[in-house]
């Protein structure tokens, strides 16, 4: 089993490298074929001819495209992901600066989604046709179909505008940022503030997290509820469940121990994919809540045609996706030994 797993992981990683290479190549070509003037973006619109020429040299834009491509590949491997044309900063460092903010909301959103979606799906399946089931199905449909940015605005109207109990946007309040600044260790403000025993910072950053996380959770909640419900209904029809019932095992144990464990595997896959997607796909929520995440960074990069930044984010997103996928497959084989890793 162990060696099988290692072999499997190794094979998947090799395949992943090819996927990555294809993505890098494709993005590189697309980013460079689009008409734009990288040197001008880098050097600024009013630069002199001499400055432009120097920028061309500095960025290596005067060399053939294939040379630039191989240079870029070499840079990727050595951690040099290029310089943002707009901000003149290191792309990899920028991505790592923006990443924790995004991870913080998407992790919380997915935790909320699991905590709400799985019980809701299970009860819907168990009490099929009941009022609770109707409600659960409605929630699920609403979750997947309501535009999350619209829901986000409603949340702001209610919790900030009317009730005044949660902040409108941002990651920290002004006063807290000045008098109880959160020292950056991991970039996760909630974690960093706890690590430094800054409880004011912790409570404040948590309060700022709630609304964006809920808004971002609506889609996965719907997805998980629906998935869990249909899988549970299927599993509960199985013979071994009937057998367990006939043996007089308590219904709750049957549902949560025997049935759910078998029903949850596809749900996990779906959850993983939606998680990986939100790494750059949370842009609308990020903009509404003034949340400085990777989605916002990506959007700015695209608007400015800042191609090193676009390439960097694309490659980072691909790696993230591949890693999440692989982890999920391995996790599946642990939960359900019948899943063959081949």
């Amino acid at each position: 089993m162990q060696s099988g797993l290692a072999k499997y992981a190794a094979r998947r990683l090799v395949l992943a490298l090819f996927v990555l290479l294809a993505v890098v190549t494709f993005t590189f070509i697309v980013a460079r074929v689009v008409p734009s003037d990288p040197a001008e973006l880098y050097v600024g619109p009013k630069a002199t001819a001499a400055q432009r020429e120097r920028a061309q040299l500095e960025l290596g834009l005067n060399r053939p495209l294939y040379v630039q491509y191989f240079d870029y590949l070499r840079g990727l491997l050595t951690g040099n992901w290029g310089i943002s044309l707009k901000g003149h900063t290191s792309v990899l460092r920028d991505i790592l600066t923006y990443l924790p903010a995004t991870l913080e909301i998407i992790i919380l959103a997915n935790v909320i989604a699991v905590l709400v979606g799985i019980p809701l799906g299970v009860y819907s399946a168990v009490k099929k046709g009941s009022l609770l089931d109707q409600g659960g199905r409605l929630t699920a449909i609403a979750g997947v179909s309501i535009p999350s940015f619209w829901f986000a605005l409603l949340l702001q109207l209610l919790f900030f505008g009317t009730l005044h109990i949660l902040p409108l946007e941002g990651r920290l309040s002004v006063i807290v940022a000045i008098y109880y600044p959160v020292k950056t260790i991991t970039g996760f403000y909630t974690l960093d503030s706890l690590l430094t025993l800054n409880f004011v910072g912790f409570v404040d950053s948590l309060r700022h997290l709630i609304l964006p996380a809920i808004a971002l959770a609506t889609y996965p909640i719907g997805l998980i509820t629906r998935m869990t419900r249909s899988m549970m209904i299927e599993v509960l029809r199985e013979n071994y469940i009937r057998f367990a019932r006939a043996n007089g095992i308590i219904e709750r144990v049957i549902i949560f121990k025997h049935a759910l464990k078998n029903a949850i595997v596809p749900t996990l896959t779906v959850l993983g994919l939606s998680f990986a997607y939100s790494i750059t796909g949370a842009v609308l929520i990020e903009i509404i809540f003034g949340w400085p995440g990777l989605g916002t960074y990506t959007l700015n990069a695209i608007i400015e045609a800042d191609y090193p930044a676009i390439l960097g984010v694309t490659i980072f997103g691909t790696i993230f996706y591949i890693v999440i996928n692989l982890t999920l497959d391995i996790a599946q084989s642990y939960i359900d030994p019948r899943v063959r890793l081949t």
Partner: protein
Amino acid sequence: MSLKSSRTKLYAAVVIAIIAIAAIGGFYYYQLSQGPPVKPIAVYSYVSDFPDLDPSSAFEDEQIVLANTYEDLVYFDPSKEQPLQPWLATSWDVSTDGLTWTFHLRTGVTFHDGTPFNAQAVKFSLERTMTLGLGGAYIWDPVKAVNAVNDNTVELLLKYPAPVPQMASSQYAAWMMSPTIPTNATDWFNQGHDAGTGPYMMQSYQKGTQLTLEKYPNYWRGWSGSHFENIVFRVDRDPSVRLQAVQSGDADFTLDIPVDLLSTVQSNPNVKVVDSKAYRNLVGMINTVRAPTNSVLVRQAISYAFPYQDVIDSVWRGHARQSTGPVPSGMLGHFDDLTQYNLNLDKARQLLVQAGYPNGGFSLTLTYTSGDEVEKAVAELYKAQLAKLNIQLDIQEMTTRAKYALARGDPSQAQHIILFYWWPTYITAYDFLFNLFHSEKKHIFNFAYYNNPQYDKLIDDASQLEGTNTPQALQMYKQAQQIVVDDAASLFIFDQDTTIVYNARIQNFVDNPAYIETIFFYNIWETKG
């Protein structure tokens, strides 16, 4: 696993959770009660974030932060009779050939890390900016060398005469920084560090949302009197959020509020709205190469068909003025007595007859930036007027990049009219006159493709005289402007206002258009209440 033990575990988890929440809550209130007394804080709710906080290369809107953390050798104050005010340099003089400028430096100034400000620091700052060669660094093109003559004297040797004190007061690429910064400091600056001499220094930076400054205790102008202790820049992309922030007291300053929203706060006693002339205008450059606008008569005719006053009244509700020539009003080098085109369709028809288009009958393309509601309204209003002359205006909405890409291609295929805004890097009429109308080998911003050797010579000569003989330089700028106005190389549409909305308790606030949208927080304070 028995049911009982799982239930016990659940209870234990609940109890632990309650204890954890209580503990955090307790510490929260304890820390709050132990916190420092709240000192005066000013909050500026701004439109966008800051792509590059490197004082050498910043070229977007970063000056709103940098002007509070860094200082120039010279401060440009348009409200003064002599706008070039001594700042980190106390005086300067120029050799008779205009090629050597000597700056005498202020003593007793230190950078935020304690390093003394001196001639070496000036040399370091200018050379770093020139070597990087990014953003506004091009303004130093005339400079051949920077020499530290002694500790408090710096000499700039030029390749050709240029107005160095104006350049030294620039809002881009002229900030003085400490020589102690790390090599390749761009990333370091963008993680929230600074190395200036200004009244405030960087406290914390959350890239993309919030930047806070704290006062620099050893600032050379001292801290007697009322001042803010901390300054916060927060990024609010949505105008109604920004306006709401100032109305509710969460923020003290904001701007870039659409005019229809502005009218909702004009009666609010807690909020002040102030208009000041910005050094920024909207031009509609007219293609002088492509037919039919290659005819000066056609260009004049369509200049007489533009509804200038309508735009001021309906689009801006008075927060702008009709332009007179390419240099915006309020700026040195602007002249109110240049010829101004006004909406006059009869005159336009006569000119069309002379040009050989008695009944119009041609179409023109106009491009504007997508998402810019003002440019869009301008285009629509213009289309309606041109239609009366039987000229069809094809309006094309494009991204900034696409718009410029089209204009930088073959002029005979490019748009007839391109709308865009212009503002100067440092305060000189030459910035407008050179970038917009000076002949170019490769088209950069002269989208009229205007090519007039007489004009080129006038402005180039004037620019060289500007530092030593300003009145004569201004007269030459005026003459040059009259030439492009007569040639109708562009529609001169409006000179914009900067409209700042701020907390009415703020005292002593005056906008300085030489530093775009910048608030010099050291100069202002807040009354209690």
